């Protein structure tokens, strides 16, 4: 039988790293607080036994202030694991032990994993493990989760101590509070009030801490007892306010810290150097988060990241383009003319190949982002942007949701939307939910990469930086607009923890990069492939009617009837244009022109073509032709589809099938395309309706399809307005 254990601790204390070490999983670890919002489960079988391990969200306390705290507490209370493995950051012992004390007060057996011992050692912090364990009355095991050090000892300790049970820690909160607590505890025990689930003293403490969840549960359970308890709380509150100018909640926190301080002062911690010395991270922060220098460095870092991505991905991208060109050429030569050939070349190779062609670019971008994330710089970005966010009616916690969604091009709006759960104010949360889709997610990246490569080849990194800034400025302005109109409300305060800088490990960087790149490839090979085939069918059928086909046939006959059979034989016998006489070349060109016209007419007459043409009347204002319209409609399913659809649309309308040009080259030479059109399309892509999955997420997170519908309609209208403005202004200027 396996032992159920819960990993719990402060955000950024290394829970997920330890979880990965113990279970062999590869859950993503971020060097910023709040990576784990949901609980994750894994199994570990060792010589000491089998363990069911649950990784709980990081929390600072067990009072139901935020979703993480509720998730963690509900699990501990309802599931009652055999033991809590409390991961404590050894370099921040005092603050981390605050949560440990609350676990111990709950009466669930606790084992402390004193993590990041290497960091503590580097900072000159020496911890007497045995003394700490003795004073707290719980086992303490030193660990370094990053390297797996202490993992075995931890599991051995858990196996040995899990079944021994634990008495709840009883801290003295001072005479006034203790008296009230005793009175409440007696009342609770006598009435059996919530005691099936919670220890009586713990319930009393939560009443004093004004814990909304417990207050609601109490009111449901027994109104009479709840009212009596509230009366005691009220009496104590008035007394403390009158005598000490304090609230019970604050007093309880003070006493807990007092208890911890008392423990630590008993020769538990020794500092080799002056404790107040500036840590290395603080020194770096003096520069990197400086009020004036910080933002400049941040823009420089982004520019560096984009430069790195575009510079190093050029060659492998060309190789992949060449590979898909070769596959297309092989299919062209091997397959007979017909629907199957069109499906394979235009639908699959040119469609999905267009998306897969950007894998190297995505990979380099993710590598750069992983470095920034793992080093701790991403948290600094959030810290600096927090000041700006408050000006626009958003919360500091919104910053991470924005970054996760693609604040640095390459994220995903789905986890971004979910990250907004950490916001406590419903209005700030809603404003965040509705604006995170403006960030440049990994799915928008291939669209930008395609257009930037085709029309801004000399300034790729600079254009990417401009697009990033536009998306941020746009999102913040929309947030301000929403917070001033439909979702008015007060801003709530925010305190952000800055994790220390760490040198990312090569292994960690490679794993993160690979995981994200693999997700991209998998999506291209599954959902995008499916959509590409469906869209190919929509761009192929119903085809041209007999009358139109006859007209094109007649046009061909008009060309061929006027030339000698020898000339026609020369054209059909020749491979390519090599060796053809001038007269034969002219005839071949005429025939290809007719073929092209026919292909265009067939595409225009297709189901998708008709939709594109119907929208062209309006979309022309933004510079988009009917083929772009098809791509943008397809992009609602997933943004990568914009690229695959353009690939198919321009492949189906290809005049010379023997010419294996890339999509970027096709767009460059296509009529109606210019750098201005491309820029207008990129602006539209930033702001228009979120993809299907994000819309579903918004509906789920807000509990209403009204806001999901709002995000589709509002974003598309905004995107169109901005694209028209850019295109029309550009036409006037250029």
């Amino acid at each position: 039988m396996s032992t159920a254990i819960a990993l719990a601790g402060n955000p950024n204390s290394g829970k997920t790293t330890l979880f990965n070490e113990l279970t062999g999983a590869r859950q993503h670890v971020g060097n910023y607080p709040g990576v784990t919002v949901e609980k994750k489960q894994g199994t570990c079988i060792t010589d000491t036994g089998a363990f069911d391990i649950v990784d709980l969200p990081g929390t600072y306390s067990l009072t139901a202030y935020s979703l993480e705290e509720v998730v963690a507490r509900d699990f501990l209370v309802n599931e009652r694991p055999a033991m809590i493995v409390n991961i404590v950051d050894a370099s921040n012992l005092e603050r981390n032990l605050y949560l440990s004390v609350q676990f111990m007060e709950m009466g669930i057996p606790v084992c402390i994993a004193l993590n990041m011992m290497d960091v503590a050692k580097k900072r000159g912090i020496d911890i007497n493990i045995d003394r700490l364990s003795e004073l707290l009355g719980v086992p303490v095991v030193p660990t370094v989760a990053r390297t797996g050090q202490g993992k075995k000892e931890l599991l051995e300790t858990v196996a040995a101590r899990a079944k021994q049970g634990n008495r709840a820690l009883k801290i003295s909160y001072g005479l006034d509070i203790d008296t009230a607590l005793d009175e409440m505890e007696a009342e609770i025990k006598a009435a059996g009030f919530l005691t099936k689930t919670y220890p009586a003293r713990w319930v009393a403490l939560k009443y004093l801490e004004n814990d909304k969840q417990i207050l609601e549960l109490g009111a449901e359970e027994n109104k009479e007892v709840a009212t009596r308890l509230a009366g005691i709380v009220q009496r104590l509150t008035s007394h403390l306010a009158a005598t000490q100018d304090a609230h019970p909640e604050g007093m309880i926190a003070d006493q807990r810290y007092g208890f911890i301080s008392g423990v630590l002062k008993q020769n538990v911690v020794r500092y080799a150097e002056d404790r107040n010395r500036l840590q290395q991270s603080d020194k770096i922060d003096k520069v990197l988060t400086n009020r004036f220098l910080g933002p400049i460095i941040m823009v420089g870092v982004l520019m560096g990241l984009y430069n790195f991505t575009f510079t190093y991905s050029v060659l492998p991208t060309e190789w992949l383009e060449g590979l898909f060109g070769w596959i297309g050429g092989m299919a062209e030569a091997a397959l007979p003319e017909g629907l199957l050939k069109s499906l394979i070349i235009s639908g699959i190779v040119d469609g999905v190949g267009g998306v897969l062609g950007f894998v190297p670019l995505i990979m380099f971008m993710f590598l750069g982002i992983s470095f920034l994330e793992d080093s701790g710089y991403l948290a600094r970005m959030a810290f600096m942007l927090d000041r700006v966010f408050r000006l626009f009616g958003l919360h500091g916690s919104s910053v991470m949701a924005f970054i996760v969604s693609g604040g640095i091009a390459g994220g995903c709006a789905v986890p971004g939307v979910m990250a907004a759960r950490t916001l406590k104010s419903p209005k700030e949360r809603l404003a965040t939910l509705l604006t995170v889709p403006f960030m440049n997610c990994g799915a928008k990246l291939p669209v930008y990469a395609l257009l930037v490569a085709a029309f801004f080849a000399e300034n790729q990194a600079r254009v990417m930086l401009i697009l990033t800034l536009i998306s941020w400025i746009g999102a913040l302005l929309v947030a301000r607009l929403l917070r001033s109109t439909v979702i008015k409300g007060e801003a709530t305060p925010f305190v952000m923890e800055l994790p220390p800088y760490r040198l990312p490990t090569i292994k960690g960087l490679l794993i993160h990069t690979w995981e994200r790149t693999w997700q991209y490839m998998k999506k291209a090979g599954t959902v995008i492939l499916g959509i590409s085939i469906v869209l190919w069918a929509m761009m192929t059928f119903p085809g041209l009617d007999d009358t139109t086909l006859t007209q094109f046939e007649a046009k061909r006959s008009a060309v061929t009837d006027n030339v000698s059979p020898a000339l026609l034989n020369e054209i059909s016998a020749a491979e390519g244009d090599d060796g053809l006489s001038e007269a034969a070349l002219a005839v071949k060109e005429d025939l290809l022109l007719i073929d092209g016209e026919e292909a265009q007419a067939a595409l225009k007459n297709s189901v998708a073509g008709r939709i594109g043409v119907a929208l062209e009347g309006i979309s022309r204002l933004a510079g988009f032709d009917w083929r772009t319209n098809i791509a943008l409609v397809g992009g609602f399913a997933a943004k990568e589809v914009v690229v695959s659809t353009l690939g198919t649309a321009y492949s189906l309308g290809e005049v010379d099938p023997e010419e294996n040009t890339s999509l970027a080259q096709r767009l460059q030479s296509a009529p109606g395309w210019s750098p201005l059109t491309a820029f207008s399309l990129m602006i539209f892509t930033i702001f228009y309706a979120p993809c299907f999955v994000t819309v579903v997420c918004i509906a789920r997170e807000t509990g209403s399809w009204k806001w999901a519908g709002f995000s589709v309609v509002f974003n598309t209208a905004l995107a169109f307005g901005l694209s028209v403005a850019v295109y029309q202004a550009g036409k006037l200027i250029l």
Partner: protein
Amino acid sequence: MENLLVGLIVAAALAFTVRSFVRMYKGKGECGCGSASNCSGCASRTDDGCDEQKEFICK
């Protein structure tokens, strides 16, 4: 024969796409939520599905 094959491929692609979207809608899309960008193709759902729990077996 060729048209039949193309018809089958398109029908399979359509069925797969519809199924994928239904799964996404129900929050059952495959994903590894909790990281910056590997969540494509999944939707949030706390009672059942992608972002609640994920089983891992240790090496």
